[in-house]
């Protein structure tokens, strides 16, 4: 499963920019990564910066790790503190990214919240938070990025990279199911259907849309698993271990890169074979 575990979201619209020198060269690749202050989003941001992208990200709160990453890549990180559920703030964020970096080439829709619990006793607020952030928030972000893809020149430093790409961060529970995660899984399954449809819709413009579906990761997301559950998952995984953030980052690096120029409408499951 992937996605930060947290309660309902609340804070709105407080903007912070954590990198220093603004620069607006229009020929470099810019990637938006939602939820980039920690966890998988932070790891994705780090990888993309290392490959030369500029990265724009937002999250409900900042983090020391993101500040350190921005300091390591001066002028190449744009961060705003906002709530993914706030459509107007997300819209402004994409506009601010374009103002700062000149364009958007890839979008990684990663921001998510998860509230565990059996459906029968789940509060409306938890259901609403997951639907709003995980599904609606991701859709609004991608809509804004697609609008930008359609508006900007297609030429990229690497022409094979195409006219823009989107990666939705789903979860293996969308396809496999898991008790206590029905609503979370519903949002992730929604993202996968969204990706398949949107891939067909914008494919004629060369825009690619894919999803990744991580399995259980050996991070704090799976720290709540009991030792027996953890052992059971590892035993059922052909590759014999839990996934690591790096496993997912590699897939996103691929899907947003020239190697995936002819890949769209796909969900790449990354769970060591556990779902097969």
């Amino acid at each position, binding site marked *: 499963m992937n996605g930060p575990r947290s309660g309902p979201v609340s804070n709105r619209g407080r903007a912070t920019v954590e990198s220093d020198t603004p620069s607006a060269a229009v020929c470099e690749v810019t990637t938006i990564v939602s939820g980039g202050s920690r966890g998988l989003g932070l790891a994705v941001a780090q990888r993309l910066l290392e490959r030369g992208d500029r990265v724009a990200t937002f999250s409900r709160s900042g983090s020391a790790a993101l500040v350190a990453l921005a300091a390591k890549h001066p002028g190449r990180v744009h961060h705003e503190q906002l709530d993914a559920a706030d459509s107007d703030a997300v819209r402004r964020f994409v506009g601010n990214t374009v103002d700062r970096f000149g364009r958007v080439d890839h979008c990684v829709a990663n921001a998510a919240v998860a509230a565990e619990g059996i459906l029968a006793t789940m509060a409306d607020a938890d259901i609403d938070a997951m639907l709003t952030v995980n599904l609606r928030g991701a859709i609004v972000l991608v809509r804004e990025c697609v*609008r930008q893809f*359609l*508006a900007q020149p*297609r030429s990229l430093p690497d022409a094979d990279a195409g006219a823009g790409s989107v990666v939705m961060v789903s979860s293996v529970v969308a396809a496999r199911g898991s008790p206590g995660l029905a609503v979370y899984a519903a949002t992730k399954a929604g993202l996968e259907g969204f990706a398949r449809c949107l891939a067909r*819709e*914008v494919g*004629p*413009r060369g825009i690619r849309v894919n999803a990744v579906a991580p399995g259980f990761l050996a991070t704090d997301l799976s720290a709540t698993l009991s030792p027996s559950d953890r052992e059971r998952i590892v035993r059922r995984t052909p590759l014999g271990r839990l996934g690591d953030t790096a496993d997912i980052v590699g897939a996103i690096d691929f899907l947003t890169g020239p190697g995936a120029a002819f890949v769209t409408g796909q969900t790449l499951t990354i769970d060591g074979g556990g779902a097969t």
Partner: protein
Amino acid sequence: MTSIDGATRDIAAEVREAILAVYRDTARPPRDTPGSALLGGDLGLDSLDLAQIIVLLERSLGVDPFRDARGSAPHPPIRTVDHIVALYAATLAARS
């Protein structure tokens, strides 16, 4: 349209430029774009082309009638170049 003022003429020019930009972006030969031209039948534009035109017009005219129409009555069908021009003229007039 039988009579247009200067503002509408400017809008019409922007609409035509956006249509030509879509042709360029999709490597299609440009076509004449008289106001009465049907977007689909005469100009060969599909719904994705129209979406791109709307995005481009938001950049040039500063409004998106569809995005800005939260909760209001649905727009009339957009079938011709003149329909687009009229929609943007009405949207901009309502804003001023």
